[in-house]
């Protein structure tokens, strides 16, 4: 498939256990994408996706027979490397969202997203970019703030993500933080670019860099952060 065609009308696969929700998403995406299939549980999803190799899979985080992360990992195992995943969910625990991202999803948006915004997000993911909703931006800021918190004794029971700032252990650059904060404040990429006087392309590269760090670096520390969040 050529890059042009991908950008114009990406082939999309839907995974969600609610038929009603799949129907709603299909209606919202309309003619802007080509729906190549849908599944309501992880096993069938892995099978169909590796068979049809869509450009983008819209993925529910929570499902019977394994969550979104299981689908991503299953497809990767059978070699669907070109398939990109976008997590789409109502409101999930941070550890699940981070889990799906770390399994390989290119972004996370909440189901409150508007139709045109969803189309935009699908196109962005199809083109290889990352898509951060305000919520995901918040999770990432939280996770990296925790990671860069200075050491010190504390009660193990009172586990809370520790907000602190330590430039030496900083995992994100100052600019990346700035970008994430603006996303968390509800700015679109375009508004964000205007605000920081940079191009949308630069914004995208910052977000992708953050996604890469989220997926590849400090793996054990992120897992620990997620585990601690679960205690809340």
């Amino acid at each position, binding site marked *: 498939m050529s890059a042009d065609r991908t950008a114009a009308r990406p082939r999309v696969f839907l995974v969600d256990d609610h038929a009603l929700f799949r129907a709603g998403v299909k209606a919202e995406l309309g003619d802007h994408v080509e729906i190549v299939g849908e599944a309501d549980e992880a096993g069938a999803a892995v099978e169909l996706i590796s068979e049809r190799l869509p450009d983008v899979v819209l993925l529910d985080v929570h499902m019977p027979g394994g969550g979104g992360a299981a689908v991503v990992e299953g497809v990767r195992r059978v070699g669907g490397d070109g398939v990109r995943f976008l997590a789409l969910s109502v409101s999930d625990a941070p550890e699940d969202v981070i889990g799906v991202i770390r399994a390989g999803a290119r972004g996370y948006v*909440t189901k*409150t997203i508007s139709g045109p915004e969803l189309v935009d997000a699908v196109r962005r993911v199809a083109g290889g970019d990352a898509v951060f909703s*305000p*919520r995901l*931006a*918040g999770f990432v*800021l*939280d996770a990296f*703030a*925790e990671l860069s*918190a*200075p*050491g*010190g*004794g*504390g*009660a*193990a029971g*009172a*586990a*809370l*993500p*520790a*907000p*602190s*700032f330590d430039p030496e252990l900083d995992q994100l650059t100052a600019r990346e933080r700035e970008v994430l*904060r603006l996303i*968390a*404040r*509800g*700015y679109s990429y375009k508004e964000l670019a205007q605000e920081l006087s940079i191009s949308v392309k630069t914004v995208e590269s910052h977000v992708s860099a953050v996604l890469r760090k989220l997926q590849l670096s400090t793996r054990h*520390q992120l897992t*620990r952060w997620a585990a*601690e969040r679960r205690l809340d």
Partner: protein
Amino acid sequence: MLGGVCGALARRIHKDPTVVRVAFVVFALVGFGVTVYVLAWLFVPLEGEPDNIASRAIADPRGIAVAIALLTVVGLALVIVSAFGVSWVSSMSSSLLIAVAGLVLVWRDSSPREQEQVRHVLRPVADLLSVSSPSRRAIAFRLLLAAGLFVGGLVALLAHHQTGVSLRPLAGLLLVMAGVVVLFGPWWLRLARDLVGERQARARAEEREEMAIRLHDSVLQTLALIQRKSGDPVEVVRLARAQERELRAWLFEDKAIGSSDVDDLLFSEAVRRIQQEVEATHGAKVEIVVVGDCELDEALRGMIAAGREATVNAAKWSGAEVISLFAEVDGSGVSMFVRDTGVGFVVDGVPEDRKGLSDSIRGRMARLGGEARIRSAPGAGTEVALALPRGSQPSRSAQSPAGRRG
């Protein structure tokens, strides 16, 4: 207290009832306070009634006729009695006559409420005298005991002349007092109980009123919203849920409804509460993102209140469907951003009397040592940015499980 005169007078002359009561007690000690009290009872109308007892008495010809008739009957009886030479009766006859006639008029022309009050206060005395009282035996016993004590006291007093012992009169006095206590004790008790009961009733009424206000502020508002959005089942369910949560919190967890009661909350919980409140009362969707957390202190509570005001403003005026609320706690301070993509406004064009913006947000943040910046333009949405530096404030990271992180 008896006729509620002091309270009524106090309302008349716009003074504190306690002051009036103290003045009356002082007057009573001087000598004419009781007279003034009775006169005031006659001439100050009962609250909620247009005229007083005296004016009603004058306008009541039948009452006056009854009084005159009674006057003649009692007068005649007195004449007959005095004819037998019982001198002490005639010595107090004139004042007795006037008193009886006056009482008849007062009784007839006091309002039903007042009659009920006086009847209630006097009932034990009436019980004492009436033979049909259910606790007749107890009363008889009490009377007997009182009489015995009286007699004993009197004998002791009279015996003083013969014996000359100085302690005797004192003992007699004590006995008389004991007799008075036995005779009137239950009545006093009853008065005291009534007073307590009245106070409790008033407390209950106040509680009910407060509850009514709260239910109005929350439940009725929500019901109104539900009626307006009856076409949108999702929204109706959300409103109902939010209301239920709030009501339960108030009923069973003793948390105030819709109030700014954010004690014992973490910062993130307080922000979440803003989301719940604004979504419940204004129907706009609020998307919150909170990074970091800490305990609330006085300054942060103020900041939360400013943030709530900004969110409510956005929900009310912007016309935007979604309001973004981002809050972050880090080592250097706390920041909050309330953003909408609605109609926006000219920031400098806001008139001075718009309290919300100038007082609740800017003024509050300035008082707390922080700042509020407002960015908006017509058609380009609005963003309120609140910042509070936390130099000396230890952040929650002090208690974080950092030690476990190897």
